[in-house]
């Protein structure tokens, strides 16, 4: 397993946001994380990305327990996060954005040629055909193209786990499809992908496994091939579905 969370807990003061969460993600698979607003999806991501410290449990990468104390630790382990707001600079072009803060140098100068070549290779390996000119400013790109650039930026750094937080939320129909195909391709090329979404269609289109959070607890982790839409909806809204999910009548509280 590339990443394994065991018994992960996180409290904000008296509020227990995550309690005893187990999740494992392997290379080459898309694991979708679903849950209602406030279920703890974003907090979970921020714990893995090193933005929040954890109050209990362990994060294991490649079978070794790791203390992730900041985003740099996460990046060093090959974990990259693409947030909803994308964090791209509108006034810079595609290549400059991809290498922002980690520019390649040749002596004292920027190595523009090498960066442009590497950017082109990355985009073509992801079969991105929508971005023709790598030197156009990001401001001139559409929402889908920006999302593509943000994802490519995460992939460029020998990353092994890419976490995507609602990547299709702000996109149109056609652009959503392109991004979904891109996400699937990332995993098929051997990356692990943790994919957070509210849209069950998008989840079913790309996921190998579906993890449902309910009030800070992991209700169930299902194989997407065995799951049905109504099961997942029940897990999201009530934390259980048939024999799956959390014990009866706990209403999310610990018994």
């Amino acid at each position, binding site marked *: 397993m590339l990443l394994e969370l065991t018994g992960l807990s996180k409290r904000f003061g008296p509020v227990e946001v995550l309690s005893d969460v187990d999740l494992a993600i392997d290379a080459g698979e898309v694991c979708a994380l679903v849950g209602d607003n406030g279920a703890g999806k974003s907090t979970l991501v921020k714990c893995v990305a090193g933005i929040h410290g954890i109050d209990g449990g362990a994060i294991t990468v490649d079978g070794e327990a790791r203390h992730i104390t900041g985003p740099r630790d996460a990046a060093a382990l090959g974990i990259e996060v693409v947030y909803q707001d994308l964090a791209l600079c509108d006034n810079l072009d595609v290549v400059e954005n991809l290498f922002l803060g980690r520019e390649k140098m040749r002596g004292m100068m920027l190595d523009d040629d090498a960066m442009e070549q590497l950017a082109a290779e990355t985009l073509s390996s992801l*079969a991105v055909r929508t971005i023709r000119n790598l030197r156009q400013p990001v401001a001139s790109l559409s929402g889908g193209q920006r999302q593509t650039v943000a994802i490519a930026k995460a992939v460029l750094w020998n990353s092994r786990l890419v976490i995507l937080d609602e990547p299709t939320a702000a996109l*149109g*129909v056609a652009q*959503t*499809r392109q991004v*979904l*195909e891109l996400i*699937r*391709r990332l995993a*098929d090329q051997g990356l692990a992908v943790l994919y957070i979404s509210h849209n*069950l*269609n*998008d*989840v*079913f*289109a*790309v996921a190998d496994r579906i993890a449902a959070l309910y009030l800070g607890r992991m209700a169930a982790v299902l*194989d*997407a*091939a*065995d*799951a*049905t*839409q*109504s099961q997942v909806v029940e897990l999201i809204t009530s934390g259980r579905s048939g024999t799956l999910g959390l014990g009866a009548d706990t209403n999310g509280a610990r018994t």
Partner: protein
Amino acid sequence: MALPPAVELRRRNRAALLQQLHRHGPQTRAALTEALGLNRSTIGALATELAESGHIEETTGQSTGSAGRPSTLVACVPQSITVAAVEIRADRLRFALVGLGGEVLERSETALDEGADPMTAVSVITGGTAAASAEAVAAVPGLVDEGTVAHSTELGWIDRDAAADLEAATGREWQVVDTATAAAVGEWTRGDARDSRKLLYLHGGRGLTAGLVIEGRAQRGGSIQLGHIVVEPGGRECACGLRGCLEAEMEAFGFGEDFETTTLAAGMGDAAARDRLRRFGEDLGWALGAVVTATGPDEILFGGWLRELYLSTAAPVRSALAETTLPHLRSKLRLRTPVLGDEGALIGAAETGFAALFDQMR
């Protein structure tokens, strides 16, 4: 008459080497030695022979940046063997001339009048190139067996000997494959599906067809009439005479244009449009469940407008599939969209021709 064993072996090795270069692109002699499991001197002799006959050339490869002489690459000469491929659709005809190694040497398209017979247009678009090429392959949407098109919703053909008609129009022999099978071959050879052992390609045009290829090879009987699987017994009447066919239930005639409007409306919150989409997704999932149970593929590609349908309604499609297939059949099943897009059928038709040529060489 059987050839002497040494000559026969040489022919086989020659075909294997060309096929390796055709599929995997330019490579060094060392890489060829490893990939084919032949002796270095055998490769050397074959390469010299093929270079003399004009099939391959040895080029100085790109410098890898490391010290030393850059190694020479063996590459196909595209013009040495060419295959003509056409894709016949109701409203247009597409043509490509593909050379050894997969390079597209010529590419053109022409619009067809609705209901007009495409055969004359085929002879015009292929021009003189069809006669000069080693193989000619036509991709036709529908149920195809050998050269005969048994049923095509899109073209309105029933039991038409398309191979004979094409030969009459152009004066050369043609292979006929169905569009979905051709696209499956294309995706296996030049797309992302090269690891698939049993690949099922679904094609959405006017009417829905599917093609099953095993280890990248088209099979007789691999052409499947997906659109005429009954998902609603006693349901809507279909043009084929049955009731409740997938195509009829999905209103698939002229569906392509209508579909984007429906998804857009559903995206903006139109409940009726959402309901329609969900129903289409479910119907597709049920029909697929039957096909998966019958054929056991390890990968399914959603092509044509089914790409859009799948990406927009994956939840009902996969839910219906989970409810109608056995666990061991669905656990290893990969659902994907094609990377070659609309070009897949044309590329695959050409690759079908190359596969036949390599078979003849052995």
